[in-house]
């Protein structure tokens, strides 16, 4: 979700290093592995939702499959009591502590899942077309507007798909599935070269 440059944490790119080095430049559907991001999985009920949003600096969206963004941070609705919180940088500890402090005594769950997944960016005029090779959602701007984020599938791998701009999507995928998704995306964009 958050564009940062890969610096301190070599693990963040590890599954895709070799693949990304060999990728072809295709302007209509550019494929990029994004740098490290802090990812926190938050689950909770009413009282904790409000407090977590205030500590995070982004209100947690209450509408299904929406994403709220402020100051480079993103709060993604994944379920009616489940969110993923994204912040730039590879160190989630201060953020984790801030939210944990704000939600003390309120039933909730907060888990650092920063290393669980990697984020790919698919951008260009054919980005939606390429994603639809492995995902059956209606990705028209009416049905899947900017600000939409949802868990879904890309071929056989579970992903979290976000529309950042009309032509820019982020694909968050579990680390061990990343090479599979990457190569299926490469396969889908081959015809555009």
């Amino acid at each position: 979700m958050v564009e940062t440059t890969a610096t301190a944490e070599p693990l963040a790119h590890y599954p895709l290093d070799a693949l990304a080095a060999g990728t072809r430049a295709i302007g209509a559907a550019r494929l990029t592995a994004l740098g490290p991001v802090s990812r926190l999985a938050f689950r909770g009920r009413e009282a904790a939702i409000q407090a977590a949003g205030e500590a995070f600096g982004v209100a947690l969206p209450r509408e299904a499959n929406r994403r709220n963004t402020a100051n480079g941070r993103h709060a993604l609705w994944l379920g009616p009591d489940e969110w993923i919180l994204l912040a730039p940088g590879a160190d989630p500890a201060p953020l984790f502590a801030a939210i944990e402090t704000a939600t003390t005594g309120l039933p909730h769950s907060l888990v650092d899942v920063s290393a669980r997944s990697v984020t790919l960016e698919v951008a260009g005029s054919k980005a939606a077309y390429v994603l639809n090779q492995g995902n059956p959602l209606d990705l028209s701007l009416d049905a899947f507007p900017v600000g939409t984020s949802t868990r879904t599938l890309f071929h056989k791998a579970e992903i979290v798909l976000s529309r950042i701009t009309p032509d820019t999507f982020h694909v968050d995928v579990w680390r061990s599935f990343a090479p599979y998704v990457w190569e299926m995306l490469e396969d889908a964009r081959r015809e555009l070269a």
Partner: protein
Amino acid sequence: MLIINCPWCGARPEIEFRYGGEAHVARPADPAAMSDQEWADFLYNRTNPKGLHAERWRHIHGCGRYFNAVRDTVSDFFVTTYKAGEPRPDIGESGQ
């Protein structure tokens, strides 16, 4: 592709879902008081109707939530979906 209406997410493709068996099967409050046959009925025996069937589904590759659906087992038509905890909609046992 079959489209299923998640009560939370709206219309989504069937591959995002998993079936969860018959809905509204309440766990007995006092299993120790039941006969073996009654307990076996709770565990194993389902209505298996030809026609409308209230059943659980999980939007596992979406919002992750369980919900209920009324589906026609003959046509595979989803008559309606509703959130877990809500009562079975007042729809007949068969037909539409």
